[in-house]
């Protein structure tokens, strides 16, 4: 009987009512996945650039293409947020920001700072 019962998990409705702390958390996870995938790209660039002069030049060419640059930016942006959210998490482990107001504040701070960092990264890259 239990197995046939439906479950109400209207993610759409729940997302609409998602508090900022939950947004901060899911972003942490998403940026983590981006970084996990992006690591391959970084390995590839590192391999090229640390090889010979030719390799370095090729890496520069890859990075000069819009797609190559965008990918790097995405990684940097993700890194920025993941790092800030990580700091927030670490603080939480030391019981800093473990109230609802504290956590809301910390979530907003990390999101805003990460956006600023992503903008700065864009300026730096372009």
């Amino acid at each position, binding site marked *: 009987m239990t197995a046939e019962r439906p*479950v109400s998990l209207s993610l759409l409705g729940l997302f609409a009512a998602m508090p900022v702390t939950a947004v901060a958390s899911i972003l942490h*996870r998403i940026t*983590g*996945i981006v970084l*996990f995938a992006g*690591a*391959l790209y970084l*390995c590839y660039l*590192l*391999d090229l*650039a*640390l090889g*010979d*002069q030719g390799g*370095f030049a090729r890496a520069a060419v890859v990075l000069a293409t819009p797609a190559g640059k965008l990918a790097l930016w995405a990684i940097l942006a993700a*890194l920025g947020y993941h*790092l800030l959210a*990580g*700091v927030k998490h*670490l603080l939480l*482990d030391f019981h800093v920001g473990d109230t609802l107001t504290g956590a809301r504040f910390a979530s907003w701070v990390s999101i805003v700072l990460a956006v600023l960092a992503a903008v700065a990264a864009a300026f*730096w890259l372009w």
Partner: protein
Amino acid sequence: MVTSVTSFGRSGLADWVLQRVSAVVLAAYALCVLGFFVTADSVDHTKLVGFFGSLPLKLFTTLAVLSLAAHAWIGMWTIGTDYVRRHYFGRAHTLFLAAYQVVCVAAVFVYVLWPLSVVWGDT
């Protein structure tokens, strides 16, 4: 008590500590490398090789790569055991979960061996 052979460490506590420690290492490494690129006026091949080829940085890179392995595996394992569920994947969900984990392990291997061979390989 819930036991799980696929968890990285012997316990949730160990995983938790490892994830925090590795996070700190990775953060420091990321800031260090970023700092190099941001502060350098222009980066050419020689400067780059000089930076990554120095012994302290080789050791740091090695530490970072190992941290990445631990950090990423714990994170990706958690994600897998969250979302790859019977509810979405049916009876074969354990098969999917196994496949997912094999892919993650393979990627982690690449992320360890490739950078290490790059920084340690030619010297």
